[in-house]
Structures are given as C-alpha cells and as structure tokens.
C-alpha cells in the first residue's frame, strides 16, 4: 500500500507517493538521494549512523517509517553547513581528527549538533553519555569528545 507524503528535508519540500513500509532512512537515501545519512545496523537503532534531526530533535531515521515524518522538517548532515560555511562542530571534527572512516560521522554530527545546543557547556562525562547512541569503531571516541567540547566552547 502506498501513501503520498509531504516531508521537508533541509528546507526542500518533497511530495512523494511511497510504500507505507518504507523506512525514513530509505526515503532520505533513496528517494531524496541524500546519502550522507548511513545505515550501520539492522535497523535496531543501536549504531546511530542514520541519526537525523526531526524538527530539530536528533532521531534515528531507521526507527521511523517515512509516512510518520509527514508534515515534519528533517535536517540531515547535508543541511548543517549553510552556503558552504561549515558549522563549528564540523570544523572541529576536522581540527581534532574526530573521524577516521567517517561512516558514523554524519550521525554523530546530527546528534551532537542538537546536544551542544541543549548543553552549551558540557563536561567530558556528559559528552560521553551523550554519545552512547552512536557507535564509532575507528577513533576510540577520544578525539570526538575533544571536538565536541571545543565546538561547544566556540558555539557558546
């Protein structure tokens, strides 16, 4: 069964007739062709690579159907930089070498972008707990924690 949905992604409206069972992550990747949002687990919501923001709140897009996003504003990693200007968080990930393969990075950026808005002055422990919904296999997390802390300071 199909339904027509209206979803905004990074400010761009989409009106598409899609199968009801389509996951939001597949809508983002395969319909909107925004492949920065990744899939790292079998849709059990553990790895966090598919994290996006729904109306500004970090969410795992593999745990939602696309039809549930009807009428909502979605931001993906492609929507973070404005007019080519990277956010302090994106810059900080580069400066602190907070990514290696970069597969988990978009999800972490989307989660931490919201996190530092809500926690402008986080401690290391708070950042580490804020990251439990995102698995990273390469970095050991140390540089991610440093990058988030630095970005929070620069964003404040």
């Amino acid at each position, binding site marked *: 069964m199909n339904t027509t949905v209206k979803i905004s992604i990074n400010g761009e409206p989409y009106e598409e007739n899609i199968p009801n069972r389509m996951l939001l992550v597949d809508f983002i990747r395969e319909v909107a062709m925004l492949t920065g949002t990744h899939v790292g687990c079998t849709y059990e919501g553990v790895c966090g690579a598919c994290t996006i923001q729904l109306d500004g709140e970090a969410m795992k897009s593999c745990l939602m159907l696309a039809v549930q996003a009807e009428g909502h504003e979605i931001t993906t990693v492609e929507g973070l930089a404005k007019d080519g200007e990277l956010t302090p968080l994106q810059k900080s990930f580069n400066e602190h070498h907070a990514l290696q*393969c*970069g597969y988990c990075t978009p999800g972490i950026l989307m989660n931490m972008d919201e996190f530092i808005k809500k926690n402008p002055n986080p401690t290391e422990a708070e950042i580490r707990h804020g990251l439990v919904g995102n698995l990273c*296999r390469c970095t050991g997390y140390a540089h991610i924690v440093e990058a988030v802390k630095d970005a929070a300071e620069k964003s404040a």
Partner: protein
Amino acid sequence: MSDKTDEAWVGKKFARKEDHRLTTGRGRFLADLSIPGMLHLTFLRSERAHATIKSIDTSAANALPGVIAIYKGEDIRDKILPMPQPVVQPNLSARFPKHWPLAVGKVKFHGEPVAAIVSRDKYVGADAAEAIVVEYEDLPYVGDPEKALEAGSTKVHDDWDDNLIFEMGFTGGDTSESQATNDAEVDEIMKTADIVIKNRFRVQRCGMTPMETRGVIADWDDADGLVAHITTQRPHIDRLGLSDILDIPAEQVRVISPRDQGGGFGVKAPFYREPILICWIAKELGRPIRWVETRQEHLMAVSQERDQINDLEVAASKDGKLLAIRNRGIADCGDGCEGVYWGFVMPFLGAVELPNGYTWEKGDVKLKVAVTNKSCLSPARAFGEFPTRFAMERSVDMIAKRCNMEPAELRRKNLIPELPYTSVCGEYMDSGDFLKVWDNLMKQADLPSFRRKQEEAHREGRYIGIGFGLGVELSGVSSELMVPMENQPGYGAATIRLDARGKAFVYEGDAPQGQGHETTAAQAVAHAFGIHPNDVVVVTGDTSTTPFGSGTIGARMGSYFVSAAVDASEVLKKKLARFLAHDLELEDATEGDFEFKDGEIIYIKDPKIRQSFRDACNRNIMAPINLPEGESAGLEHTSFFEAAKPMIAFNADVCTVEVNPENGQFNLLSWTTSEDVGQIINPQIVEGQMQGAIVQGISNTIFEEFIYDENGQQLTADFENYKLATAADVPYMRITHAPTPCPHTPLGSRGIGEGRPSDVPGCLTNAVCDALSPFGIEITELPLRPDKIWRLIQDAKSTQAAN
C-alpha cells in the same frame, strides 16, 4: 589552494584532506553508489548449522512481482569453478575446503548463503527470501574444536578424513630430528626449572566489525568485461581471483574499491564468496547488480576471529629469568571456506608472534586448527595474536608473582635488549629500542606511588590494580613472510605523476579504510618535493589506474607504501635536477646539488640560481625540446619498495583499574602507552590509530562475544546482543612516544596500527588480577566479565575461609 611554505611536512600535524566530504555528507561509500538499471541482490542464508539440503522451493518467491531471478547452489555448481583457486591459496601446507558461493548439498554454518535473489528493490528481495521454503535434514553439529579433532567426530567436510585443516610446529628448525631434539631440550627445562607455570588460556570468538558492512556492485559488458566495486582492502587480489574463478580474461576485470570505505580492520581483506557470485550473476543477466550486506548478515558470516585455546607452559628461574615456553594452540576455524586466509592464517601468525618482545631462550610451539560448523574466522586487527599475547602477558605476570618481583621489573629484565633479534618462533625483529620504550612507560607510570595508593586503598577495603603489557607489531609484511603466508608479494608500490602545473598525483593500489592515506601520503610526497600537501592528490584502490599492491593490511601504509612514494619522488627529483642543470648550463652540478623547498628547486652551491617547481614541471612536460642528452620527457615513476627483512613497531602499555569485590564490576581508571612508531609523519593520525586500536582491544576484552548455542545457532547477530564499546565505556588514553627511526625505510617511519590492540587483553586483565591480589585470583579466560570475576572472588573467599 597552493600555499608556499617553508615547513617540513613529515612529522607535522595536518588536518585531514578526507574530512570535508565526510563531515558534509558527501562521502561516497559503496551503498551510496548506483548504476542505471541496477538490481538488488538478497541472500537467503542457512537457518541451520549443519544440515543436508533436501529441497529448496522458490516457486512462491519467483511469483512475486519485482523478482528477476533466484539462484541456488545446484544452479551454479557446474557454471562457476569452485574454490580454492591458487591465487588465493597460501603456500603453507594445509587443506583448502572445496566450496561454491552458495551451499551445495549441505549447509555448514548458520548464515551460509543458500540462495540469492535478484530483485528490483531490496524490500521485494526481503519478501522473496521469506517466501523461499528450504527443507533441511539436520546433521550433528560440530562446535567444539577439541572434540572435532577426536577420532570418529562428525566431519564438517565430507570429502576429508577428519576435521584438521592446519597443523604446524614453529620451533626447532626444519628437520624432524632437530625438532625432536629441541622439544626434548624444552622438556628438560620444564622438568628442572625453578618455576614452571601451565595454564589453559581461552579467548572467545570476537572480531572487529567495521561500521560499514560489506557490499558489491558488479556491472558487465560483453566487450569491456567486468567492473566490480567491492568493499575491499585488496582490490588487485580480488581482480586476479575473480578473473581466475570466473574464467574472465584478466584484462576484462577491473575492481574498484570505493574511495570511502567504512572501516576494514582485516574484515575486508579476504577473497569472499559473495563477490564471486554477484559478479557472475551480473554477467549472466547482463544487468548491474548491487548487494549491500545487512548488519545481521555481517555478524553471522564474517567479523569473527580470536577463538583460540592456548595451553601455555612457561619456565623461569627464581630470580626472574625467562627460560622456555611450550605451547599447544588449538583454534576453532569455523568452516574454513574463505579465500586468502581459510581461517587458519590468523592462528598461524598468532603462534609466530607468541614469544613477543622477550628473550625466551627455548620454545616448543605447536598449533592445530580445526574446522567446525561456524562461520569461518576472518581477519581482525591484532591478527591471530590477540589470544596468544593474552596468554603470554598473563603468564609473565604469574611468573613475576612467583618470583616476588614487580611484573614491570620482570618485564624489563627480560626485554630483548638489542635488535635485530629472531625469536624462538622465527619472528625477525629488525630494529628499535625496547628498553627505551619501556623506560619511557615507567616514567609515566610512577609505580612506587601507585603501590602506596594501592596499600591505602586496600586498608579502606577498595581494590585498585595496575597492569602492564607490551607488543611487537609487524610494520608491514615483507615478501619473505607474505609469499608463504598469503601467496602474495609484500612490496609497497606507488606511482607518482607530476603535472604541468607542478601538482603531484600519487597512485596507490592498496585501498584505505579510513586511516587517512590521502593525508599521510600527501604529506610525505609534499615533503619530498617541497610543495604543499594540498598540491598532492592521492588516488587509491582502482585496479585500472594504480600499481599492483597486496592491499591495505598489516600496517603497510607507513612502512611500505609511503616508502615507495618517497622513493618514486626521489627518482623524479633527480630528473628535474638533471633538466635544470642542463637548461642553466651548470656543468658541475650533480643530482644531489639541488634542494626542493618552498615550491622551488634551488641550486645549493649558488642559491640565487633557482626555478619554481611548477616551471620545472611545465618545461619537462609541455616544452620537450632541447632535452638533456639521453633524456625523454615526462615526470612519472613507479617505485616498488621492499625491505630486505620484516620490520616491526613496538609499544608498551600500563593501565589502572578499580574492582568492586561485591559484584565484580570494574572501572578502567587510566591508560597510558609508550610507542615506538619510528619517524612520525602525522602525529594526530598516529594518535587516532592508537586511541582507536586500544578501545577496540578493550571492547574485545570486555564486551564482545559471538555465541553459538548447542545446536550451532548464532545468537549474537545484531548490535543489541553483540555489544561494542561506547564512548561512555572507555577513558581517554594517554599516548606517549619513545621513537627510534627505522633504518630500513627512507623516512625512518614504521607502519603502525594493525597489531596495536594485541597487548590490551593481557594488560587489562593483569590490572584486574593485581587489584584482586589479596584473593590470589588469576584470570585465564576472556571475555573479562563482572559475573566471572565475582564468581572467582566467591571461590577465593571460600578457599580462604576453608584454610
């Protein structure tokens, strides 16, 4: 951007060139690629561990709209050559099980591909997989490697006479007489030494599990042949393997590993069965096919390593001199059906590396590897040595205890004092200064102060402990080892092409997995030419444009590839120098009289004489007239770097923990390292490798375990049941350096990262045992879990009460 700079780029922190695309969602991983007309492939995998396939009914699945084709083992067995094929077969004496990409006749592990569905989209593929009915007749499950080796065991491979895939002795020379003499000498030491300790060490099945799973996009054209995008660490080997097994002429096979790959850690190094089938189907159907592995498939079929039992016996004198080792290793290899490694190459190397950085005088080391009804072991960082090093580092601590010595002191006393050195298992260690690394670690550790704190803590009923470990890591793998071990060359190959605008293009046949090759290699080449790293472009992983390389494996980047790139740069610098000397009529000038700096080529004897690097390149490429005698135009060169002997890197670790004796839970309080990575090229990237490797080691040690039930059902095929360390589970690692430049590489660099997790399980477990020393607990099995620690404490308390 073309910055002039007077800086040396080797040894300098430089923010990675890869990061812009990866932080803005513009990375291009395999699953992000598509080809017009592309179809999706879904595997139906076995629900049983060991069973005869009675029938496969695909009629309902075939009837689903959107299903294009379904293939079963019987459909392909006469059309695709079976494995093994010589190109992916080690030159070690072993058995290589015959197999096809889809199960033929029977299934041998839970997760083996049984059928492949080609469909218009992946949702339909999943529906079709559910609609296929397979009738199985169960066979006895072979799950215990020791029982698998007993006479009369059910056989995993029907055409074998038992379940032994590989057996080897590593000590005592090449003849059976010399080995017998050696074993008798070791036996004599074991009978007479002051201290002899024997333990059975077990390390569970776990692995490295990158965040990106595997995938393939195969496209066929009758004239051009096959183009296969594969998530792979070794595209050139995949190309040869596919050509041979699919009987496609080699010039018609091109393999591309995507520029962005989401981690490998060894998992993407084998020649797997899935790409064979997918490439064949693409040819058969004449349609592009994409397969993106699900995480469930990944955890069922690959990423499983370790899984060794090591019965290790060690002998020492009472003053703490290490004398001899005797080890009987048994590895559970799974079904053994996996090109290049066959499940036994990892335990093979683990046995070679057992002696670690100690001066064991004698050794008797033997290994048996059994096939079972589990997924074949696939490589994981700290390749094979994670279990043997756990056994070694734990044993060294136990000896120290018997000698009443600090484990740190005993380690220092027995460290290899001078290199080169060849271990009793034949591992050649080329260079470095182990004592310098160790002494640097001890400076960081401040052991006396920790012991005072520990005493105070014990008085308060708190249990804190300190643990040490050390690790010799292969710095690349020389041909001397690679040819027998994997039937592949060890050399690093790099092509450098300079263009008319003075930019450098570096071509690498290996396939990076996120380690930052584009940045590290750019720094090394920029350093050589005196240009900026942003003026250097590194191209990787496409067999049609890059020189042959055996793959991104075994820390080959900082050792072999970078060295080849530097060598190639030096050849081109000499050519540019000769042209400049000719054009400026510097009759006395030699190739060595020119310095490449700040984007200029400077005549050292008269620095006023100089030419911009760009003009020099332009002159050579665009104005090839009035050439020096015997010269031709063009600035391109390929170098093959090979060290005469294997090279190593070295590290030592110290960590501290606090254990709660009430429940066995423990906190990791600190972790400090001391590293010899030789000349560092980019310190930030090196630190990132170390941080990540240690956390992987901790995650393997504490959390990760693939569990098979009594029927061979794999119970841990998702991230809810197979737990990886999160940010909240680990502390910050303090990385320190005590480098000795490698004398065998042009920059003095060493390759690092691959073996780095190897001493983590021993180091961490040593700390826990040290914390619990009042109970006299010695842990010999992983994973290191609170429930097990709690039980050991309870047992120790009962024993103490009884005494």
